């Protein structure tokens, strides 16, 4: 039941996108998500969609994995689109009832929002499908390094992120054990009203939290015993390497930005 959680969705296909430096992938994904908001007409959205599709195909990951990324969010997307359609004004009015109005601008904005959501989800899914979580954590640390100067505890944040990733499978396993123990004593997690289902989660959370705190305590002792005394001055076993292909990816993104700026005026 926990096999479809976000972490560990990495699918190794050794494509060119897989081989990119995680820092490049993380920074460019963020950058792309920002420039999506600069698209202002159907041509610019179509251009970004074609680019995203090319990236998706370039990952050589099955399309169903991307659908798995969109599926859990489909209701939020539709809800936002419908809200936009019912409450926007401007242009020709097609339908009107009480406070609800369907206008020309409302429909267009709804369509734009749908496209934005889709592009953002697809691009962030590209990042998680092609980069192991550990390397994403390394990239976060590396990109945040300049913040050390303004006393942001970057090394500690990176270690926390890495430990959190490391404990995801352990805690999922623990949750499964607690649920099985409770099922064995007659708890039914799969049926009843929503309220009943929410209530049945509480007896899982309490032992899970107690166990997580105990684990954290033991881990802190183990870290201390292995000489951990803060991030300052620690050397790194895992080093990220910037290659020519990463620079090329950045140039490609620059080209995409220039084309986007051009098609905005159509």
């Amino acid at each position, binding site marked *: 039941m926990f096999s479809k959680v976000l972490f560990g969705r990495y699918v190794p296909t050794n494509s060119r996108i897989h081989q990119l430096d995680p820092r490049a992938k993380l920074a460019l994904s963020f950058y792309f998500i920002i420039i999506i908001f600069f698209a202002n007409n159907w041509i610019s959205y179509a251009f970004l969609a074609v680019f995203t599709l090319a990236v998706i195909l370039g990952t050589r990951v099955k399309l169903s994995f991307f659908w798995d990324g969109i599926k859990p969010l489909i209701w939020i997307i539709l809800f936002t689109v419908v809200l936009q359609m019912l409450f926007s004004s401007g242009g020709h009015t097609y339908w009107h009832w009480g406070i609800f109005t369907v206008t020309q601008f409302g429909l267009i904005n709804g369509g734009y929002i749908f496209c934005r959501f889709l592009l953002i989800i697809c691009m962030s899914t590209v990042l998680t499908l092609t980069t192991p979580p*550990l390397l994403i954590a390394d990239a976060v640390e590396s990109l945040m390094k300049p913040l050390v100067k303004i006393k942001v505890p970057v090394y500690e944040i990176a270690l926390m992120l890495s430990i959190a990733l*490391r404990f995801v499978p352990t805690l999922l396993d623990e949750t499964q054990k607690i649920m099985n123990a409770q099922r064995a004593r007659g708890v039914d997690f799969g049926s009843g009203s929503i309220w009943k289902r929410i209530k049945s989660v509480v007896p899982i959370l309490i032992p899970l939290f107690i166990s997580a705190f*105990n684990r954290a305590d033991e881990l802190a002792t*183990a870290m201390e015993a*292995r000489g951990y005394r803060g991030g300052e001055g620690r*050397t790194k*076993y895992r080093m990220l390497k910037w290659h020519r292909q990463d620079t090329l990816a950045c140039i490609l993104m620059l080209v995409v930005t220039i084309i986007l700026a051009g098609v905005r005026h159509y």
Partner: protein
Amino acid sequence: MTAIIRATNISYHYPDETNDVIHNLSFEIKRGDWVAIVGHNGSGKSTLARAIDGLLELDQGEIFVNDQLVAQENIWEIRKQIGFVFQNPDNQFVGATVADDVAFGLENRHMPRNEMIEKVNEALEMVEMSQFAEREPAALSGGQKQRVALAGVVAMRPDILILDEATSMLDPEGRESILKLLQQLRQRYHLTVISITHDIDEAAMADEILLIDDGRLVAKGVPNEILMQGDRLIELGLDVPYGEKIKRALVKEDLQTPTEYMDSNRMVDWLWQKLNLTK
């Protein structure tokens, strides 16, 4: 041989408790020895191990490691000399992959990367886990996890290895392979091993046993001396070795048995002889 660890009149109690967990303990551990600290659950043996590594501050007494007093001022120097393997392998992994975890202690020592890679590879090779270097720790078996934990400790080249019930969560096969590996590591790196355990068969492998009860040292000696005191072991809430169990059953039936300690192999040999059988 000189003492590598010396404890004099040490006592400790947990902040929310009134009774001492360890009370007025004094002992010495010789360099290169394998010492088993044996006691029932809650007898204070794990607390003692933590005190040696400076993981808690004593109420009274002193501990010396390599003639250095364990104190806040030199705690990191002391910890460089001690490797600690805990009971639950899941709760001591920091790295997201096996190699990252082995490197964790070396990163803390600010070791240059090239040297670090060499040490990590050597340690993983020593524990026969090289092929798992890029695996997630969660994907390993209990025995493999403890091998990785040992690699993480051995990579730091300590003088002393403390095992806090490190084999108690493993199946018999995993336990046996870890104990075998420990013998190899001990020989190769000239380690002094302190094994905290309530497993009598594991304790039988040691050069010396310290018996702890309610935070007090109640007996100290070579395994043969300690393990033949069956009544005393039962009194202290411990198991009796298999060979001794058979001996006790034979004595109950008024059969003459040798007075010295016999492990299961020696007991089998003696029984063969007694029954006039040949193997």
